[in-house]
């Protein structure tokens, strides 16, 4: 029957002269190259750098003030202070209260977001360009003249402590923090949530916030990124008015460096019990690399083969072949200090042990040479879509922020594609063998212990340690009412 049908299709193909040849996929022409948006580098009279990229398709603009200090700079005992400081910037500034700032910003149809990550903090304005002149002074107040009212600090504390209570209910959040705590420990900054522990949060004072602000938010430590429907001639005078008189002390001290824990002598399994959970949240990995690694490009290609794309090995195996999960991935989280490398998935509870077997099959498999066609596909996946990642003003602003924070070279964007394409199979194998260490990686699982422990034990992967939610988050916070 199938043959008959095929013959019929062939016949109709003859009749319909236009029917296309579907026997092989159409070939694509030469790939388009990246037309890099020109970065116009200027500075204000106080030497604050300004990077401008013009994009005139839509009448909106991003203005991002990037400050080179983040939670990685939190002092010992004050984990969470960078994150709290950034949040409090919009809670009172200049002559305005928190509600007045929000009203003024919303009335302009603007978004004004403050945020801190591991390595930097930022005040980001996104506004219809017609209202840029009205929005910039508010942004400058928020960035340069925050008032840090005590009542707002108290509000933020309750908000944050309540968030921890909520995170303690969420298997995904539990596993993420449990993994960080196992790999980095309690004194390394990356072993505690960006917002800090309940103990940290409860102890913060306005003076803590002011001290972090003074040490970090300095013009010598900052840059402004502008992307959108503006010209330098139009935007520079506005920026000069709002930010040109910003003076401060010397640039901040060196960022703290953290000595990451060495690989353990043997593989350890950690289980956080979530009775009745229908899935096990699984994370497998250890300390990876800093953003400055010379292995950035080979690692990017290797991770794409392993778990960075839909057709990566982990996903094809755990999802498409076995149906154990909705999706499996791997990732290198690169920061100023070495961040984690992790393979992860949410696995249906009764397949947890089976899935661990497949995880380790793939983690061991990536140590072997990658076949040429698979390598080429991974390289093309990364390199050929790279030019598409400069589409929106937000995309471009985010990439420029990365360039500022990690001191990427001027030719970074223009040479990215060729550097990916130049990665060899030997380099991929070398970085896999260097950074993927299946027999020593930690395995951290949040799931139904009674249901999964026997199967995991039978795999003999290593000693099993049971963690409680308190081990992960510290004691449950008491929230002021």
């Amino acid at each position, binding site marked *: 029957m199938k043959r008959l049908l095929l013959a019929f299709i062939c016949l109709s193909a003859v009749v319909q002269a236009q029917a296309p040849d579907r026997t092989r996929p159409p070939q694509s022409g030469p*790939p388009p190259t990246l*037309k890099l948006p020109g970065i116009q580098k200027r500075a204000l009279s106080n030497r604050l750098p300004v990077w401008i990229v013009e994009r005139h398709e839509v*009448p909106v603009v991003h203005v991002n003030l990037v400050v080179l200090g983040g939670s990685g700079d939190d002092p010992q005992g004050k984990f969470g202070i960078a994150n709290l400081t950034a949040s409090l910037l919009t809670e009172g500034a200049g002559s305005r209260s928190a509600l007045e700032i929000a*009203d003024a910003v919303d009335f302009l149809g603007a978004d004004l977001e403050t945020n801190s990550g591991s390595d930097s903090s930022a005040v980001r304005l996104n506004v219809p360009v017609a209202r840029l002149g009205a929005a910039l002074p508010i942004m400058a107040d928020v960035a340069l003249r925050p008032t840090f009212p005590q009542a707002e600090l108290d509000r933020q504390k309750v908000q944050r402590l309540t968030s921890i209570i909520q995170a303690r209910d969420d298997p995904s959040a539990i596993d993420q923090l449990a993994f960080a705590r196992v790999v980095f420990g309690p004194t390394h900054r990356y072993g505690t949530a960006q917002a800090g522990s309940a103990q940290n949060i409860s102890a913060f004072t306005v003076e803590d916030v002011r001290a972090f602000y003074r040490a970090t938010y300095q013009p010598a430590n900052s840059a402004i990124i502008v992307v959108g429907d503006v010209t330098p001639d139009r935007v520079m005078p506005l920026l000069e008015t709002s930010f040109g008189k910003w003076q401060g002390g010397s640039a901040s001290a060196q960022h703290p460096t953290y000595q990451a824990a060495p690989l353990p002598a043997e593989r350890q399994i950690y289980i956080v019990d979530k009775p009745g959970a229908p899935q096990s949240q699984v994370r497998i990995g250890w300390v990876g690399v800093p953003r400055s690694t010379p292995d950035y490009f080979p690692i990017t290609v290797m991770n794409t083969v392993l778990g960075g794309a839909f057709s990566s090995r982990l996903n094809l195996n755990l999802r498409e072949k076995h149906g154990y999960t909705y999706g499996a991935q791997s990732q290198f989280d690169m920061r100023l200090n070495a961040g984690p490398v992790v393979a992860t998935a949410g696995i*249906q509870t009764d397949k947890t042990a089976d899935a661990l077997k497949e995880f380790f099959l793939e983690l061991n498999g990536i140590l072997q040479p990658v076949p040429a066609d698979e390598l080429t596909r*991974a390289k093309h996946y990364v390199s050929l*879509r790279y030019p*598409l990642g400069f*589409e929106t003003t937000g995309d471009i602003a985010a990439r420029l922020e990365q360039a500022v924070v990690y001191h990427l070279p001027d030719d970074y964007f223009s040479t990215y594609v060729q550097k990916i394409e130049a990665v060899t199979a030997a380099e991929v194998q070398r970085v896999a063998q260097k950074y993927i260490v299946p027999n020593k990686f930690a395995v951290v699982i949040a799931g139904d212990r009674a249901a999964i422990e026997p199967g995991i034990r039978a795999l003999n992967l290593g000693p099993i340690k049971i963690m409680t939610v308190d081990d992960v988050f510290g004691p449950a916070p008491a*929230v002021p009412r």
Partner: protein
Amino acid sequence: MKLATLLTSVALAAASSAIAQTAPTKIELPYTQFTLANGLTVILHEDHAVPLVSTNMWYHVGSAREKPGRTGFAHLFEHLMFMGSGHVKPGEFDDWLEGVGGTNNGSTENDRTNYWINVPSNAIELALFLESDRMGYLLDSATPKTVEAQRDVVKNERRQSYENRPYGQAELLLGELLYPEGHPYHWPVIGYMPDLTAASYEDVVEFFKKYYAPSNASLVVAGDINPATTRKLVEKWFGDIKPAPGPEPINVPGVALTGVTKKTVTDKVQLPRIYLAWLTPPHFAPGDAALDMVADALAGGKNSRLYKRLVYELQIAQDVQAYQASQQLSSYFLIQATARPGHTVDELKKVIDEEIAKLQTVTPDAHETERSINTIEASFFKRMEQVGGFGGKADQLNAYYTATGDPDYFNEDLSRYRAMSPSDVRAAAVKFLPLDRRVELTVMPEGAK
């Protein structure tokens, strides 16, 4: 959704200078539209900002078309659309696209299923080939085995997105509480586990033949294209797909709540949460836009009425949200709030009801309404930047075409909000948010009294 991830050349009638406030900026999206002989509607839109082409296919079928005992099937079917077709073996769809630097995904809602492919512009023909092959020849490749494989994936999607997520089960219950048994919005899009187990290969054949006809779909090709060349390519790849009768229009009687429906469930959470929901007019019907304004007045930003009282002043809630969920047959308006430790949903409900009553009796001041309009207007500009993917321009053109017959309905849509007055906002709250005709769903911590 196939895999959860996370996301114009606008011709501007008014110059976007500092004085643009005087005349409202008009948003227009130039496009070309034509229909193939087999009934497929095609919409083309040029944007050369980056060398990207996005194909965006909407099939006008969603979970509302499912039959009893087969809930979740429209979404399971969506997964099968990535498993290969007559001339594409399982695995090759993603293999080939990733090999040219492409990405793709799809999603299912009550009323529609969408699929998009983003590729560098040199690979446009590969995207059209793949999209057309699964429209024309899916059944040459689908087998009971592919159904089996994706059934397990979809069950894990349900576990990950709902069952193992705090408060996830509440989302699954809302439809059941709002819509009567038999109404096409009564069951959740993700479906019930036993129905996912029961789905068969025969169901796939039937569903494909009934709903995946070219005349029941619309295709947008947007980005770095030449419209004339692209039209020829679309005709080449989609022209030979056989026409088939589309489904009869869906026809359901109007629905209304006649009283308060209360339900309390427990979950593995420590903080109680309340959901208040009302049945409201369909997308683009009178009242729909006003309810977006009501949502912004209630919970859009720190100065919104509910945020300010519950979270900022009284500090008895951790969060509050309100939105009008606009849908084709019937919309609903939802308010949800999570209690802080030591506080109860009754405390939250009391304040929420006070604020609704206040909005119903006192006309908002002009500043508040203008703030909402400005926020919504800015969101329209921001929606003009991305071509492909979920919520990109291609997706929006298809959404507007599907809902109104006009792909470039941006300006008409925005005009609905620009025309709003404070008394319109109040009137919508009066008419559509009666305190005595709604759903009250409470999630309580397990073991709590």
